[in-house]
């Protein structure tokens, strides 16, 4: 428990597994982006056909190549998770630092609103958004982004409150630096670590939630594939072509596992308090 223990990626087996899984996932997503895949090629005569040399993962109920849909679907799901995280980060950094810096009634107003948002859980929020802007890609980004923003607003606010009392911030204030400048150059670099660690921990659950909502029909709509819609197609053909649902759920599991491990690894790397506590 010496305070100056440095983090090394290869120090634990988890770090290695994490790097390998992350690399595999990256390659798969890039493959889906780069290769000229036949997303909309139909071969109805061979619907639900199992794996074969020209279709390594088999075909779905409409005779579309499953590998192509799986790779593109993974990319879509990850893209939505990242976009939702971006929205949550924008809300979290904006309102969190506003609340933490201003204090007083601004702080009270923002934090009580956050409490209200925490009270309205994912599914209720999803229903309201789906009714207001209709099911689809943008709806799911808003649902997930707004849904997880309270966590980030609270985190940013508590970090900013601590930083505001530090001497270097007081010095900058005394020198007449404008608040925005102080926030960006004196506070943000110091609090970026914990925020990054928390953001990484949110990505995995976001991918899972995207899959759940797309499966339910609120997210990405046909004919575009996402991990959730692939599971829905697979469930419809559970008896005729189980390879579809196996491939889709295995992919969800792989993605979720990868991000859980990456989140743990990042938390240990960026938040030394945790490392000393659990070792």
């Amino acid at each position: 428990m010496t305070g100056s223990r440095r983090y090394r990626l290869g120090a634990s087996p988890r770090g290695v597994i994490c790097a390998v899984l992350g690399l595999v996932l990256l390659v798969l997503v890039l493959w889906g982006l780069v290769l000229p895949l036949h997303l909309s090629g139909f071969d109805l005569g061979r619907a639900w056909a199992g794996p074969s040399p020209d279709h390594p993962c088999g075909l779905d109920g409409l005779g579309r190549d499953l590998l192509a849909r799986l790779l593109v679907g993974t990319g879509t799901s990850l893209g939505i998770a990242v976009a939702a995280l971006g929205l949550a980060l924008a809300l979290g950094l904006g309102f969190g630092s506003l609340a933490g810096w201003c204090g007083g009634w601004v702080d009270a107003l923002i934090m009580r609103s956050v409490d209200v948002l925490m009270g309205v859980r994912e599914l209720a929020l999803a229903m309201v958004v789906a009714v207001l802007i209709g099911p689809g890609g943008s709806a799911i980004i808003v649902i997930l982004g707004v849904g997880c923003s309270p966590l980030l607003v609270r985190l940013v606010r508590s970090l900013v409150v601590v930083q505001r009392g530090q001497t270097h911030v007081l010095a900058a204030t005394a020198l007449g630096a404008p608040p925005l400048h102080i926030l960006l150059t004196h506070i943000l670099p110091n609090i970026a670590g914990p925020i990054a660690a928390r953001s990484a921990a949110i990505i995995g659950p976001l991918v899972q939630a995207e899959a759940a909502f797309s499966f339910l029909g609120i997210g990405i709509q046909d004919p575009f594939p996402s991990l959730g819609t692939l599971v829905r197609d697979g469930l419809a053909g559970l008896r005729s072509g189980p390879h579809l649902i196996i491939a889709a759920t295995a992919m969800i599991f792989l993605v979720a596992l990868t991000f859980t491990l990456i989140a743990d690894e990042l938390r240990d790397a960026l938040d030394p308090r945790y490392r000393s506590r659990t070792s």
Partner: protein
Amino acid sequence: MIRFPRMPGCWEALGRRLAEAALVLGLAVVLAFAMARLMPGDPATVMMDGQGTDPALVRRLWGAGELDLPLWRQFVDYLTGLPGGDFGLSWRYAGMPVTTLIGEAAPVTLLLVVATLTVAVPAGIAAGIASAHRPGTWLDGALTVGAVLALSMPPVVLATWLMLATPGRLVVSLAGDWLGDLAGLMAPVAALAIAPIGIVARSTRAQLLEVLGHDYVRCARAKGLSALRVMIGHALPNAMVGVWAVVGTLAGAILTSTAVVETVFNLPGLGRLAIEAVLARDYPVAGAVVLVFVLVQVTISLAVDLLIVAIAPTDRDTLDQP
């Protein structure tokens, strides 16, 4: 016997929580009403979905309901109906009261959520204790890996794998035969509980390891108490404060998962009713279900707050935490 501390700050914080809960509920009521009345599309068109829209018939349907009244009268009617559990009529199932639909679906979901929490919380805590007892051993390692695998297992994945593993045998019927119901519920509850078990186990382990480093635990050990008594009697109660907070947030996430599991296993629950109502634009049902969800969530978080205050008076500040 739970004794509540006589500390003014504590009651003040709880009072503010209650006011907040009332505010959330009030907002939800307005939202539920707005969802039903202000959305594009009208009930007559939804009711006659796929059967053409004869203007005369639409007119008659409008006139038969209260939809010709001014908006404020409709809102007053909606509000006065709420205490008696009257949410109006469904649009999709013409003539069916929303309350009947919710009343039929709610017990299924309630059963699922309660069964899931009953399985997941004790199992997770037990795994966390076993893990924290001797950190670094093979048992701790195995449980830690197991917890990571468990919490990376979304209900949609495990539910479909269970369906695949037992083809034809997972016929779930809730026909009032409680023994049959129990057997049928095993697969859905397993699918729902696996991720929460992992989450609770990880949280229990982390909290326990932190608490076990405190002086009072060393003192209890020095007195010669057995490892089990130190763990259960001294360390666990303090560790549970953090664990209960996690369980409180879990309950909300489980509600989303029930929608998925009910769809996979074809259970007539509230989650499925909610999703189908949204997709079929049956806004009165959708609004009412949102109201029910918010009510449940508000009640759960209040209960968790009370529990935390009751078991750890010094942690009453957590109520004020940002």
